[in-house]
């Protein structure tokens, strides 16, 4: 799964640390998601959706390998 978390974070002019604090996770978690090393839970994805005021599908996208 790929994501546009870094872009959305830049739009809101937030650092990884600030974003992490807003949704109650560590900076490392934000970094891991941005590097596609960790796929967040539905709860965390919905928290991001609420913060970015966008549907989850706008910043998380399935890749062909996810559909195999």
């Amino acid at each position, binding site marked *: 799964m790929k994501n546009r978390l870094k872009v959305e974070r830049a739009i809101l002019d937030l650092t990884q640390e600030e974003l992490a604090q807003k949704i109650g996770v*560590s900076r*490392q*978690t934000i970094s891991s998601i941005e590097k596609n090393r960790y796929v967040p*839970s539905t709860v965390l994805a919905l928290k991001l959706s609420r913060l970015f005021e966008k549907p989850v599908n706008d910043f998380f996208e399935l890749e062909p390998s996810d559909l195999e």
Partner: protein
Amino acid sequence: MTSSKFHEQERRRFDRMTRWQLPYSYKNIGLALTAMAILALIGTKIFWDERPEGLKLALNIVLVLGMLIISLAKEKVEDELMQSLRTQSYRWAFVTGVVYALVQPWITVGVSSLLGSSEHATEMGAFQLLFFMLFVQLLSFWNLKRTA
């Protein structure tokens, strides 16, 4: 109480028990206990000709308890990534622990036959296995955090 309600309560109770952790500050207590037990085990082995078995047993208990406290203590920020890495590390510890328990006695036999002694395969002690599993869990958790 219906059967489904009973199962739901059981599941919630089990979830609570699974998620139970010690506060972050306990990590230092665990580290202190572990370091103290290791130093005491080495010190008494070197400087005490006939170390009492009771003392060795007590130090082994302190060592395993210290490592368990480190393992159960929360991280500074204990979020879902940490929970995921923790789960992976316990899986590593369980699988390698079982393999170690099965293989280690035969390695002892192999090595001793190579060295010309006639040692038989013996069952390993509980503390040896517990130490190994906790060591693998802590090491793999640390490594997963480093590379996450």
